[in-house]
């Protein structure tokens, strides 16, 4: 079931001002039904016209809240960052398919690049609940623009890479993955920028991997066919409906 409801903003705090924010929204129906990997579509103001897809960062069923972790990019996310507690938020959700959650024999690995870490935290919580051990690899541009590491530390050991080397290893998550021992890992999940996903595609035979993809969305509910991504069989699938979670082997990054 998809809901279009007005949530109530509980808080909207900068993690890094003008850059990354965490917003907690009270909305019963979505909090009760959302699964990790799903997203919501938010009407951020008069302009932009379109809603903006944002992943669910965390769910609190008891408090009937969901939270989102978002990065200010353009007008829509700027609008979001200017909202304050007690304002209403027009949201549609939960949307899309979630990640696979079950008890795996070996460990799970979460791989996040930049704001791509957003859908992975709730996933980690639910994987842990299911009895899994978790390892995490996160990539940022630099120490100053890294965030939410404390959240992931609660899930398991975190390895970090930054482009300028100011925190963790120098480089992208690639430098960590290149020397990573996948023997202990049964399942990996990743979300991040396109170059990262393309790199992960090269590991498809080494590791069982689910990706959360992004695509420009019109409707968010599967009607407009704008958000498609190419599959290895040559067909297009809708990121908003069949996705945003895909098996790495399904997707094709060749143009």
């Amino acid at each position, binding site marked *: 079931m998809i809901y279009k409801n007005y949530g109530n903003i509980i808080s909207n705090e900068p993690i890094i001002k003008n850059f990354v924010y965490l917003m907690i929204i009270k909305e019963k129906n979505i909090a009760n039904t959302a699964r990790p990997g799903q997203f919501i579509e938010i009407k951020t103001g008069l302009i932009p*016209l379109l809603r903006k897809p944002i992943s669910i960062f965390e769910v609190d069923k008891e408090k009937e809240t969901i939270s989102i972790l978002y990065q200010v990019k353009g007008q829509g996310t700027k609008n979001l960052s200017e909202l304050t507690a007690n304002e209403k938020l027009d949201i549609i959700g939960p949307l899309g398919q979630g990640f696979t959650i079950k008890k795996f024999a070996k460990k799970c690995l979460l791989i996040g690049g930049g704001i791509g870490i957003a859908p992975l935290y709730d996933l980690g919580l639910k994987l842990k609940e299911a009895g899994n051990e978790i390892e995490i690899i996160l990539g940022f541009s630099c120490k100053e623009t890294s965030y939410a590491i404390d959240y992931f530390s609660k899930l398991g050991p975190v390895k970090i890479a930054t482009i300028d080397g100011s925190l963790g290893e120098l480089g992208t998550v690639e430098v960590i993955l290149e020397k990573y021992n996948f023997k202990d890992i049964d399942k990996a999940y990743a979300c991040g920028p396109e170059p990262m996903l393309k790199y992960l595609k090269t590991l498809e035979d080494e590791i069982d991997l689910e990706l959360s993809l992004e695509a*420009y969305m019109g*409707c*968010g509910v599967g009607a407009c*066919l*704008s958000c498609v991504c190419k599959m290895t069989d040559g067909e297009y699938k809708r990121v908003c409906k069949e996705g945003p979670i895909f098996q790495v082997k399904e997707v094709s990054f060749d143009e």
Partner: protein
Amino acid sequence: MNKLECNLGKLLLKNPITVASGTFGSGKEFKDFYDLSLLGGIMVKGTTPKKRIGNKPQRLVETSGGIINSIGLANGGVNDFINNILPETKNYGTEIIVNISGGTIDDYGYMAEKLSIDGVSALEVNISCPNVKAGGITFGTDPKMAYEVTKMVKNNTSKPIIMKLSPNVTDISIMAQAVEGGGADIISMINTLIGMAIDIEKQKPIINNIIGGYSGPPIKPIALRMVYEVYKSVNIPIIGMGGIMNTTDALEFIMAGATAISIGTANFVDPYIPLNIIDGIEKFLDRKCLKSYTQIIGAAHR
């Protein structure tokens, strides 16, 4: 009598509010939001003789308060529609209007015949696609080709036929008269305007197909003007669309001469907009003490 009963000649709708092709899928995707039988009709996503996978992404972008799309008529083909989609849409309790596109005039005839079946209330003929046999000129920009398509569809179906006009023409009235001459029962208008957007960082068009169809609020004044002109030029009813977001917009189209209206891009912004408009028009009629919305069709011409 029902204040909103909508008579489009051969096609009767319970109210004049429909949803536009390509923006509402086959309806299925909106069933969680409300009972589809509340709508006057659903124009389903464009169908073609054969399956089409559509254009390479990026297929859509917001710009200037509207959107540009170039989906490339992705769809499963007419057989898939008949076998897999129609059985479900039959149960929606609203008029199902099938939007058809082709690359040749024969394609249109083939589609019309195939779709002359139970569950299809009318055919909406999208002529904003290139004629592959005429060097890619769009059917809908040449009055003779538009006339030929209309006649071909007419000859292959007894369903009401709605010819959907492209706004990318010098004289919309000539196009309207051409399709009326070819036997159109109804005109729907407008399809999207051709637009583009450039990413200045990448120095490249944003839409992979370079150009795309521009829709949403920014095109309303142009659509409204065209409906106003066509109302004076033909004797068949008009389904008006182009940037309708609220009751005021819908009433403007009706006053310009539209007998019904269609909601497109607005469905992405708020799926409840069609229902809000039905409600809003009823309230307007009450406030003005009008017995039927038909009393204001074309009112701006008086």
